[in-house]
Every structure is written in structure tokens, then in C-alpha cells.
């Protein structure tokens, strides 16, 4: 298990992060109104640590990833990267900051420009940030990066169509690592890949983390992969964090009813075990975050729901060392 002394400065600290999207409600002339996509999210990521960010569609996990990288503006809260508050950085400072934190995207088929050779695609960030002085130097660095992710040097001269999904994801990782970032946000990096190729990319990410002491924010909905790669795991539901803990405590001793339901819903590849497993039902409607009701967002589907839950949203409370839950009945 992963232990890092608490005196170490976290790579990333997120405090009370909130993100709003503007939407037009009914009618052409209606004024846009804000929808809270992410509400009061807080977590730390330490050097060399992976935080798994889990949630279903609409939970805000991708929004959180983008907001950390300052690709989306935060409506509230603070993002602190290596001790510096970056929430309101602008212009040149923001540009320079980008080299320290990079993004790996889900779809390796859509995220590479089909008309750029791999050399140009991977060298682009190096050129933009002025880190290479000559084409030769760029080529050398690209070959080095490709080697790091397990691709041959001659890959540099080819176009994306020549590569399979797994290889393209390696290229995406090489491009993200070009600027030697401290933090990589990986948004569903293996969901689009076939099962037998997934393991290749997961293993690669783990090896690179160890070699380069990278911090990852690993966004995914596949709970088995998240358990495998993460040190700590945060569960999001409808824009709020419902539980965060060390990997093993969240999987072995989930506290929040949603976490329990989620874990019990994952099918396991063991017929005898899978047939015996009891699923914790969560019926009811998924909440509409455009028209939020007061109280806990999970109240409409929760088996433990009471009047308190419908009236007031539960705060995130630490129930054991490093294990926090937002539930009136479980904290």
C-alpha cells in the first residue's frame, strides 16, 4: 500500500472546487442560467500517487479533470498546484503552468490529428513551449519518448492511421509526457480499448509512474481497473463527492450507500461468485442536476433515505483516518 508522509507537499490540492455551466432554459429569448456541474469538491494528490476519480455519466468526473487543468473556469474554490494557487492565473503564467500538468484523453482515434505525423504530434508541445532548439533535437526527444512508451523509433515518421488503438494511446501518453509534467489527468484512458490491450496501457502507466514519479488523476467508470491502478479513490455522484478513502478501505469497507450500490453492481469474472453476489438495489430516478432539489443528491435512489436527507445535504465528514463520507446515516 501507498504511504507518503503528510509533510510532503502535495502535487495538487483541490479545495471546495465548484464548476457551473451556462444553459438556456426553455425559450429562445430565455436568459442562460448556471447549472452546478460540480459542487464543493476537495482532495489532494501527493507526488507519485494515483487518485481514482469514479462516477457514472453526469457525475462531474470529467468536469473535475478539466477544471484542475484550468481548461474550464472554476466558479468557486481553489486549485493549488505544487503549493501555488493557480485558480486565477492568466496569460503567460497560465501557459507556463500547462507544461506541468497534462491530459490523456479517452478516445485514441479522435485525439490524434490524422494529418500529422507522429513526430509532429509529439514534438508540438516541445516546440510550443520552446524546449527544443532544432528539428534534430526535437526528433531525438520524440524518439526517446516513443521508446519510453514502448514504441519503435520508426513510428515517428508514420501517420496515426497506421496504429492500433493501444498504440495510439501510447502515442497520446508520449505526447502528454513530452513536457515532463508532474501531474497527468487521464480521462478514461483505457475505456475505448479492447480487453487484451487494456492491460498493456495500464501496466505502461504504472511503470511510467514509478520511473518518473508522476501523480495521476485517473478518471474512470470501471471500478476494477480503478482499484488496480489507484492509491486513493474518490466517488462522485451528480456533481458532489460522496466518499473518498484509501483504495482498500473504500473497496473493502464502503460507507456511502451509493458506493455500496456501485460496488455491488460491478459484475465479477467468476461465475460461482457472481451468481452468489447480492446486489444492493438502487431504484428510482437519477437526479436532474439542471433542476436540483435540496438535500442529498442520492436521496431519490437511496435505501436509507429519511426526511433529513431530503431537506439538507450532508457534509463530507472524516469517519476514519483518511476516509471521508457525505451521508447523514453513515458518518
Amino acid at each position, binding site marked *: 500500500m501507498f504511504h507518503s508522509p503528510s509533510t510532503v507537499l502535495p502535487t495538487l490540492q483541490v479545495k471546495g472546487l465548484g464548476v457551473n455551466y451556462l444553459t438556456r432554459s426553455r425559450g429562445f429569448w430565455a436568459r442562460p442560467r448556471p447549472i452546478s456541474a460540480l459542487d464543493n469538491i476537495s482532495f489532494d494528490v501527493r507526488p507519485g500517487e494515483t487518485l481514482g476519480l469514479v462516477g*457514472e*455519466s453526469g457525475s462531474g468526473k470529467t468536469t473535475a479533470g478539466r477544471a484542475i487543468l484550468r481548461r474550464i473556469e472554476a466558479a468557486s474554490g481553489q486549485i493549488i498546484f505544487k503549493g501555488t494557487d493557480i485558480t486565477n492565473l492568466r496569460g503567460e503564467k497560465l501557459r507556463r503552468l500547462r507544461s506541468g500538468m497534462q491530459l490523456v484523453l479517452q478516445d485514441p482515434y479522435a485525439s490524434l490529428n490524422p494529418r500529422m505525423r507522429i513526430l509532429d504530434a509529439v514534438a508540438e508541445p516541445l516546440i510550443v513551449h520552446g524546449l527544443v532548439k532544432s528539428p534534430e533535437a526535437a526528433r531525438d526527444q520524440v524518439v526517446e519518448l516513443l521508446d519510453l512508451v*514502448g514504441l519503435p523509433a520508426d513510428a515517428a515518421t508514420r501517420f496515426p492511421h497506421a496504429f*492500433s488503438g*493501444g*498504440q495510439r494511446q501510447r502515442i497520446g501518453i508520449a505526447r502528454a509526457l513530452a513536457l515532463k509534467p508532474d501531474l497527468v489527468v487521464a480521462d478514461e484512458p483505457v475505456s475505448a480499448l*479492447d*480487453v*487484451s*490491450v*487494456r*492491460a*498493456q496501457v*495500464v*501496466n*505502461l502507466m*504504472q*511503470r511510467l509512474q*514509478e520511473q518518473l514519479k508522476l501523480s495521476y488523476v485517473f478518471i474512470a*467508470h470501471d*471500478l*476494477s*481497473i480503478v*482499484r*488496480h491502478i489507484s492509491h486513493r479513490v474518490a466517488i462522485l455522484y451528480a456533481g458532489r463527492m460522496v466518499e473518498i478513502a484509501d*483504495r*482498500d478501505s473504500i*473497496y473493502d469497507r464502503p460507507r456511502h450507500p451509493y458506493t455500496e*450500490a*456501485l*460496488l*455491488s*453492481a*460491478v*459484475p*465479477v*469474472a*467468476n*461465475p*460461482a*461468485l*457472481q*451468481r452468489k*453476489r447480492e*446486489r444492493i438495489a*438502487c*431504484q428510482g430516478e*437519477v437526479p436532474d442536476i439542471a433542476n436540483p432539489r435540496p438535500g442529498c443528491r442520492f436521496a431519490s435512489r437511496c435505501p436509507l433515505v429519511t426526511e433529513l436527507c431530503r431537506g439538507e445535504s450532508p457534509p463530507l465528514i472524516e469517519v476514519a483516518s483518511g476516509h471521508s463520507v457525505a451521508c447523514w446515516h453513515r458518518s
Partner: protein
Amino acid sequence: MTREILLEVDHLKVDFASRAGLVQAISDVSLTVHKGETLGLVGESGSGKSVSAQAVAGLISSPGTITGGDIRWRGQSLLGRKGERYARSVRGKNIAMIFQDPMTSLNPLMTIGNQLGEGMRYHLGYSHAQARKRAEELLGAVGLSAPARRLDQYPHELSGGMRQRVMIAMAISCEPELLIADEPTTALDVTIQAQILELLASLQQQLGLAIILITHDLGVVAGLCARVAVMYAGRIVETGDVDTIFETPGHPYTQGLLRSTPSLEGTDETLLSIEGMPPSLINPPPGCAFLPRCPIGTDHCRKAPPMQDWNGSVVRCWKAGTNAWLPGVMLEPAAGL
């Protein structure tokens, strides 16, 4: 098994013409489905699992052609000119299909009630009112709230899970004996997936439905299926009882697939990674298609292996049952463990 045989797929071969050459999407696929049985068809993209199901459902159209083998429903062929006519009465009625993407498989311009009733009006000769009444019952049966209100709603008013329930209601409307479910839960969230799988399981018990469940998720197969067929590069490489295959996989590919999937219980071991990727199906080399990625392949494997019995399963491998992925073999170099 003495149960009635519903569907037999016999050495089926489907080719697709493409500019790059003839794609041999499936070659030599044989399957049998008995009454009330659930068969899992597992494979990666391009393995031919969907093409096999589409062939059964009669959905192969140009540039694809069935170039060999036979598909029989209760002993009678569904192919050829005579088979076509028989097939029209069977498909949609006895054989129904649901697809991966409930967002695109419903007609956005038709109300739920009209879409649901269409099959019953065509196959069962129901009147509009009869079909509407039955549609309401079916929506209730698949667990949709306020079924009467849903009849006049359009697909865009429903969520993904609700649309998949509508698809299932439509599929069971003519009381089929076989349901082909092509990745029915892949586009859905985990908690919704579990609800849909539970629904399928309960429908199977209530209606004695046989199901062919196509998926890439081994966990889904483990929960719902009694038998499983694993496909690789257009061929079935292993088939048998689900417990046997998960316990003692015979084919190196099945072994690799099971060991490269992390478990929810969690281990700190490096995942097994099957290096390389599936071969191109244009002019595939003779012999075993898995050979380039197989850790125990030999020259002998250049000769196509036959399906052979091993430990209660049927395996397409010369070395069926050999533990192909001994610890340390073919793991990622310098993986740190």
C-alpha cells in the same frame, strides 16, 4: 443435454468485400442454442461476435455475404431462396434482437407506443387498440414506471436505461424463443447495467427464453450465461460450460483474457498483458490466428488447429490446456514487480 435444439449455426462463413480486399469476418463458426439456454459470445472488437449474431438475425447486407455454412431454426434452414421465406416468419417473431446503443436503435419520430405495437400488428395481427394495450403491459413488465404515460412519449424523453427497457419490451412483444442481445449494457452506467441484466435473467426464467448474449465483459458472462463461446479473429477458439471455462480455460487466448482483467478484490500483481494485437482478417495466414501473440506457439501451429475436446470444453488449439502464461512469461519488461 436433452433439451430441444432451437438454433444451429453450422460452419458459417461471412465475407465482406472492401477496397483493401476480402475481409473474412467469420470463418467456420458453429453454435447450438437449446431452448431456455443462455449462451455468451465473448470477443474483442473485430472478433466476429456481432457479425455472427447479425447473420442469425438476417442483418448481413452488402458488402457482406454469407459464403458458406448454414443457419437452421428448429432444423430448417434460414438461408437460400426457400429459407428466406421461412426466415421472414421466424425473425422478429421467434428470434428477436436488441442492440448496444438504445440511443440510435429507436425511431426518434415515432412514439414509444407505436414502435412497440408495430411488431405485434405485423406478426400477430393485432389491431391498433390491442397492440396499444399489450404495449402498456409490456412496458410494465420490463419495469418502466408509469407505462401508460410512456406510450405517447418519444425516445428523446427517456434516459438510456429506459430506452434499453423499451428495446427489450419490443423484443419480447411477439414472445420470441430466442433473444439475441448484442452488447446490451455497454453504453449504460454500472448501476443501470445491473438492472438490465437482472431484467434479462428474470425474463428468461419467466418466459423460458433462450438468450445469446454478446459482450466483451467477462463479468457479464459470468453472471448470466450457462455456456460461453470465445471468439478470436473470426473463429470460435473455445466453447463450453461457463464454470469450466472460467475455472480451467483451455485456450491460451482465453487464459490471457481472464488474467488480464483486474478483479474487484484487487491484487498488486502486474496485470498480464497479451502483447501485440489481433491479426488483419484480409488474407489471414493459415494456421492458428493467435500464433503471433501466443507464448507457447510453435511451427506446428502454422497448421490450422481443429476444435478438440479438452476437459469438458471444446478448444481450438494444438496444445489445449497447457498453462500458456507461466508467471514471468511475456510480462511487460521492467514493470517493477
